[in-house]
């Protein structure tokens, strides 16, 4: 049993980290009243742009040995952040400045982002004219996967808590910081005011559009890191089309599951990660079909949480009141 936990726990965390990035980003976004259903697309874009950055960097090297570990991490991370920022700006420009419908814009962004990821994932080699058989950035991935050297020496404790790469710890740190900022600082108070009632916030002198822009763009950048983590660490630098799957939607599910609290998201994302891979551990014998039903669990759990939170109708456990609505000062 103990061995099982030691082997299950790190895998659940590895599955949970992209979800944690996605949900932290989406919570920040939704707190500003923007419902960004483009998060799955943003995560694809973040992932593929990380791949493109790493690919360009690796191709520019005279030999694989000349790889500078710092640059190998920095280049993909920056290209991931910049591309996710651009996606965030696009969403904000359409929904905040042009006041377009957020659901439609988000879905269009998901179509676009997933298409972009799969397109460049499938065609990057051909477009760049490189002479490698398939997209495997193992050298860059090894730099991303560097974990603390002491992890091996500490037995099960090291394996369970210290054996991860920096992106895992970063995801937890970001979630905790986001939670602190949202709930304990003036910026967070303003952000929540914008999401709950932009009219009041505007009257109080808060720049509604600026908060919406900032929150959505920062949220997209955080979500993009989730895509980067998935390709570079979890998938060992190998891009496979559609491999990222429905994790983006699970991240949105997680937002509801945690009732808009990033600090709860840390544990909840690992729980979801566990639920996501639980089917691999079920001793169902020959019955493969039941495994498909286990994959349903995270969504069913989310629906139940959604129903219960709406039934109990507690004021601190509701979605931001103006979620999904565009704000126009002259419209009352």
């Amino acid at each position, binding site marked *: 049993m103990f061995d099982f936990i030691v082997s299950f726990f790190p895998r659940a965390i590895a599955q949970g980290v992209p979800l944690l990035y996605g949900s932290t980003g989406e919570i920040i976004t939704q707190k500003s009243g923007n419902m960004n259903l483009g998060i799955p697309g943003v995560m694809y874009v973040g992932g593929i742009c990380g791949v493109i950055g790493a690919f360009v960097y690796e191709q520019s090297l005279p030999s694989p040995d000349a790889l500078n570990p710092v640059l190998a991490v920095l280049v993909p991370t920056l290209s991931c952040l910049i591309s996710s920022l651009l996606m965030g700006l696009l969403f904000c420009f359409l929904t905040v400045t042009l006041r377009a419908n957020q659901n439609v814009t988000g879905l*269009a962004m998901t179509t676009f982002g997933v298409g972009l990821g799969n397109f460049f994932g499938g065609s990057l080699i051909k477009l760049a004219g490189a002479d490698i058989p398939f997209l495997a950035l193992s050298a860059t991935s090894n730099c991303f996967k560097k974990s603390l050297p002491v992890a091996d020496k500490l037995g099960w404790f090291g394996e369970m808590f210290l054996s991860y790469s920096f992106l895992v710890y970063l995801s937890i740190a970001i979630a905790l910081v986001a939670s602190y900022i949202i709930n304990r600082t003036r910026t967070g108070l303003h952000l929540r005011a914008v999401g709950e009632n932009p009219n009041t916030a505007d009257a109080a002198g808060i720049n509604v559009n600026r908060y919406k822009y900032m929150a959505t763009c920062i949220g997209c950048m955080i979500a993009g890191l989730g895509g980067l983590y998935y390709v570079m660490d979890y998938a060992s630098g190998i891009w496979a089309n559609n491999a990222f799957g429905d994790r983006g939607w699970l991240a949105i599910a997680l937002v509801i599951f945690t009732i808009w609290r990033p600090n709860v998201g840390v544990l909840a994302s690992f729980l979801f990660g566990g639920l996501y891979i639980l089917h691999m551990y079920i001793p169902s014998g020959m019955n493969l079909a039941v495994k*498909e039903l286990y994959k349903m669990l995270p969504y069913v759990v989310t629906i139940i949480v*959604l129903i219960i939170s709406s039934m109990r109708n507690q004021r601190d456990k509701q979605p931001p009141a103006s979620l999904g609505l565009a704000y126009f000062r002259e419209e009352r």
Partner: protein
Amino acid sequence: MNKQNQGPLVHIVKRGVMPWYFGWSIRALAIVLALVACGIISSLVTGENAVEIYTAIIDGSFGSKRKVWVLLQNVAMLLCVALALTPAFKMKFWNLGGEGQALAGALASAACMILMKDMPNALVISCMVITSILAGALWGAIPAVFKAKFGTNETLFTLMMNYVAMQIVAYYSVVWENPKGSGNIGVINPNTMVGWFPQVGSSKYLLNIIIVAVLTIGMYIYLKYSKQGYEIAVVGESERTARYIGIKVDRIIIRTMLISGAICGIAGLLLVGGTNHTLNADIVSGRGFTAVMVAWLAKFNPIWMVFTSFLLVFLGRGAGEIATDFGLNQAFGDILTGIILFFIIGSEFFITYKISFRKSGRKEDK
């Protein structure tokens, strides 16, 4: 920097009522701009000139008789899901669960085909019709009941229901797998053709297209001329007004979602019984999401939806043709679709609002 006495440089005002052609000409302009942008991007990626790109796009849809039929079939299916979502959207109920509701319908009809394979064809088909409509309606009504009773957020609820439906279908794909061990259901009843819809006319797609055409007109009439359509519009415009004039909002929400889900169920039925004759979790292939955009772009008008769904399918197939011709990845179509959607979404702003710049005082200030 004394700006106290001045209005802002850019001022946005809502337009009054504009003639109908005004909005559509702006939209047409947006589509043209989007096509130009797509042409430029395609040229950059493929290195071909723009003329060849556009030829390839048209060729993808009208290149051969078969391609035209496939185009029409895809338009019909997308339109069917979009029609289903429309009454809900008019009510401001964001039904993002078209995918799941259509899958529920598809699952029900596939179940009839598999479990009743020895029964007479007419009985099987009537069972398929009834069960798939019921299944779709049920899948749509679950979020509606909770929305009506507790105000549960329907956008997120319907979204999650998609994945529940997908996993249930995946479960039955393994249960009914044929041949054993393949993990998917092959063509159902390939020899007896029990549960296959009869072929009307020259193409197996014609029946689906006719059914969807009837649905389109029916939905147009329902929304525009029936009492229920009017109630939907009132609830969508203002729930409080609806309550005030004695409309039972809960009942309208549930009834409308039953209709919405039922038509999604028909889409699933047509996919399984009419064309594919099989079932897998990807059978609706994202139409539930694309249909949201189709319905929204057409401003929830069923007749305009014919054009918007045609536009999206046409471009998707055109982009697919480009991808095949130039050896690119099929996902290229999604990128072009996304770009076009961004343009059209952005253009809505210029239809609703007018930008007026500050008249004077700018230069003296500097």
